[in-house]
């Protein structure tokens, strides 16, 4: 399932949804708001082209499911204003064995970063800056 939400990500819920009796491996990626020592990040604004991002993420999810024989794949991306330490994105993949679960999870985050219409704005002591954007 794909979600883009203004609410806090509940990883436990995602993992529960991804568990299967015939899956021996569950791999989770959590991307969090990072404050590099010298940046003084105050918060992060995340913006999505919601409809296009949902569609693209579903395509990516389907690609991962079939390429890596996943049993389940769950993706949630936050939007809105996030504090340091909060989760921006969570991806949970289950598979029969760990090789596929790791590869599937990695594939989804790499493709998400490359293809999903999502943007981040860093608000720090030094000012504001769109990451990868104007």
């Amino acid at each position: 399932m794909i979600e883009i939400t203004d609410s806090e990500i509940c990883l436990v819920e995602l993992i529960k949804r991804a568990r299967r009796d015939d899956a021996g491996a569950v791999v989770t990626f959590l991307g969090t708001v990072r404050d590099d020592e010298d940046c003084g990040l105050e918060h992060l604004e995340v913006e999505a082209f919601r409809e296009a991002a949902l569609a693209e993420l579903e395509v990516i999810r389907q690609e991962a499911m079939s390429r890596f024989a996943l049993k389940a794949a769950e993706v949630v991306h936050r939007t809105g204003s996030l504090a340091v330490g909060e989760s921006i994105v969570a991806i949970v993949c289950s598979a029969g064995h760990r090789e596929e679960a790791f590869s599937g999870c990695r594939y989804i985050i790499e493709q998400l970063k490359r293809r999903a219409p999502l943007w981040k704005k860093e608000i720090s002591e030094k000012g504001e800056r769109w990451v990868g954007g104007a």
Partner: protein
Amino acid sequence: MRVKVIAFAGFREILGKERELDVKEAATVKELLQVLAAGSPRFREEAFEESGAVRDYVLLMVNRKRIDPQQDLSRALVDGDELAVFPPLAGG
């Protein structure tokens, strides 16, 4: 005819999130971008090079399908089309 323009990230801050525009029949994507530039010097600066070419930096979707800025700028729009204008994706 009437088209919708939606903008994201830095371009949203310049153009606003969403607006409807009346443009001439069969206006191309590039002509629509020029209309936007005519109304916003800031947008013109961010989206166009000195030469008048659209910057590589500008990403575009028509009706939620990515278009190639090198090839599809001459694509004619039709009534009701939605053009999305946005900067590169968040990446790393």
